[in-house]
């Protein structure tokens, strides 16, 4: 699960000479929120987002109506973009969790993917959310069970063992430390083609683990 498999290749890009009005129209029409600004050879020069395209009212405060129009029509994305030196980027071969971490820690919504300064793609929060959705096989119907277990070696193996002992397959599996319960760990498994009751019966037999949530999706 590397960035290169989940990024959008050939993102829509613009040149720094594009006017702000044009950029707003371009982003709106194509329903995108991030616009890498590139120069010759797709070299990253900056990044425009919907926020950067908004003009701060304070800058306009001192201008009269005619000046505002001229000011706005002369403004280009090159003037307002986040300059390349300040844009946080990633590489094709980073893992998606690394990309997620960078985005979470910097509270940003996208990472241009660069290769020697050249834009080769872009990965956004939506790409990562889509991947979370795929990891949990959200679109495939099945039974989703959350099992709470002590955070001890061998516990997950018990759960997997109990499922495979029944001859069932695991469609999706994920896990994380249990919220607000130190020392516990939550595992989510998704099982297909088996009635909910049978799953509950089989998993309840595991000592030291409890089912905290079962639902059919």
């Amino acid at each position, binding site marked *: 699960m590397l960035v290169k498999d989940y990024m959008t290749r050939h993102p829509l890009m613009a040149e720094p000479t594009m006017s702000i009005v044009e950029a707003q129209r371009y982003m709106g029409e*194509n329903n995108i929120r991030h616009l890498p600004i590139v120069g010759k050879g*797709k070299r990253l020069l900056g990044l425009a987002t919907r926020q950067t395209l908004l003009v701060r009212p304070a800058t306009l405060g001192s201008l009269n109506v005619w000046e505002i129009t001229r000011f706005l029509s002369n403004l280009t994305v090159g003037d307002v973009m986040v300059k390349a030196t300040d844009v946080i980027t990633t590489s094709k071969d980073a893992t998606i969790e690394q990309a997620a971490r960078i985005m979470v820690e910097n509270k940003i919504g996208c990472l241009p993917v660069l290769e020697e300064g050249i834009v080769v793609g872009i990965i956004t929060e939506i790409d990562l959310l889509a991947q979370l959705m795929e990891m949990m096989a959200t679109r495939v119907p099945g039974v989703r069970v959350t099992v709470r277990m002590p955070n001890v070696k061998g516990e997950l193996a018990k759960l997997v063992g109990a499922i495979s002992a029944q001859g069932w397959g695991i469609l999706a599996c994920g896990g994380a430390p249990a919220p607000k319960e130190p020392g516990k760990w939550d595992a989510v498994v998704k099982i297909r083609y088996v009635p909910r009751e049978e799953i509950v019966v089989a998993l309840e037999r595991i000592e030291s683990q409890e089912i905290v949530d079962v639902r059919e999706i």
Partner: protein
Amino acid sequence: MTANHRIQTPILEVENLAISYETRKGDVLAVRDVSFEVHRGETQGIVGESGCGKSTIAFGIVNFLGRNGKIVGGSIFFQGQELRGRSEEELRRLRGDQIAMVYQDPMQALNPSLRIGDQLSEGLIVHRHLSKEAAYEKCIDMLKRVYMPDPEAVMLRYPHQLSGGQQQRVVIAMALLNNPALLIMDEPTTALDVTVEAAVLDLIDELRREFDTAIMYITHNLGVIARVSDRVGVMYAGEMVEQAPVEEVFLNSMHPYTQGLMRCVPKLGLSKESSYLCPIRGRVPSPAELPPGCIFEPRCDYARPRCRQTHPELRQAAPGHFIRCLFAEEIAAQEWQPPEDLIPDLMALAARKAEAAEPILHLQNVRTYYEQESRSVASLIGLGKKRYVKAVDDVSIEVPKGCTLGVVGESGCGKSTLAKTIVGLEPLTGGEVEFLGFDISVPVKKRDIRLIKELQMVFQNPDSTMNPSFSVGHQIGRPLRRFKTVPRNQVRDEVIHLLGAVKLSAVYYDRLPRQLSGGEKQRVGIARAFAARPDLVLCDEPVSSLDVSVQAAVLNLLLEIQQEYGTTMLFIAHDLSVVRFFSDYIAVMYLGKMCEIGPAEAIYAPPYHPYTEALLSAVPIPDPRAEQKRIRLSGTVPSALDPPSGCRFHTRCPRKIGEICETEVPPWQDAGNGHRIFCHIPLEELRQMEAVVTIEEESNAG
């Protein structure tokens, strides 16, 4: 596709595009009202006969129209941004960074005086400011991606030191180096052998998936289109007449032109006994003289008065299926009937039967070697060992009277040399050729004129085999006068009769070759070959350079004439569907040797020679349902100067069984009914091979 959160904007969106060329007769609209979209990771095929404006669209997108061409209407959106009206400089940057093109002839895209490495890395060094070493490394990586054998060595070579397939790989690698969003491919495999073509098509498909590139693929070959495209647009005389997903176009085509095209190509595995080709009558109108209503109306079998008056708009007939025809739904519902004027011809064709007859041509261990010049001192004084290119080596065949022998193989396999040897244009190195019981192992100059008369040839390229300064009538009349087929005062009548036989009217008598279309020229070539009423006609790729609808007409014509005159034919072609359709017997050649020979239907079913199997698996089939086994030959045909020992195919054979293949010449194995295979693998094992091509027939398939 699961990734529906991705950008929905098509990479390329062409809307109502119109392109005109300035000519001496005024502006000519070569492309009118063409609209289509290419999405990321998708291939949009554009198919049509020559002169339909396919390439013009491609040139229009990148503004390569030349001085006399201009876009006169519509818009081109690339990544959601309008390209029309952009400055030269902006377009140039876009072309360098985001759009790449691959053209038909790789030799024209490569600079012959620069090493491959320098050409490939130039763009990276100039555009991306990479250091020479880094750029070289990237290029080598990319050459590996396109499966170039030995990329490091290739970087140091010049283009002429590579084979055609390798050159095309270099061009594709060059196109992909900048990771373009859009790749425009204009007939990229047309100049390549089927085996190479199959490998290049596989490569294109793989790269499209990996790099998410949008591909616009232009070709005239329906088989290739069926293999690579997701969506297909059919062009006719500058307009798009049908556009739909590939299965729709091939299985439920609604426009009469598309349906007609489908009937023009022989399906692999069908023979002339069980089927016939139906050419589309007439020819593509020139863009300067378009009919007022539907542009296809003059050639359409369903034309009605309204078609003559109203120009149909492109409309959606089914979800995602666009057509430009007023009555498409009615037409699609009807069962197609051959037009009445064609029925008698077709009936006659269907009725023909090849009876087993006496062999007319008999080749015994025929060898044609070309002496290779050597530069050593020893050879200068005549002491050196002479080296030979063994173009045809030890070939023995028989052709029964009135039958057709098809010869297939990759280029450089000696097919044409074989034909030239028989006709006497190349001297025989060894063996015997017997024709009508006469020994014809002598060059054509020493042959009796009556013998020359009986052996005629139809060439691949009608342009270069016709004298441009003589009229058609004169050229056809020449063999008549020379061989005294008819008295002198009847030559003109006979020529007109012959023109009639090839479906050309008497007005063509005084025309010059440049006034004819490609198909007409080839007809004249055929008329000339048949003028002497020969017993044997050698056809060397007679339809390769022709459009499908013309090809169908020419093939039908050859069949008809063959039937009328009872002529025997040797038919050389690289298109296996055509050869299967046309021939009674087929010989498969590899590197100057026969590997398999037998009745046509036997060649296309197991047991196969491993080489035949590979060839069959490479043929592009104009049916998206066709399942082919994937057998790809590695490397190129070895040099005939120093052919491999033992079985010549062993260096590339995927079924090689061991040392025996390298050391011993394979035996002839008789599979019955004259079907012989030259292979070490026991017949029983060969018989157990699966059929290479299977087409899943749905119950509702028409």
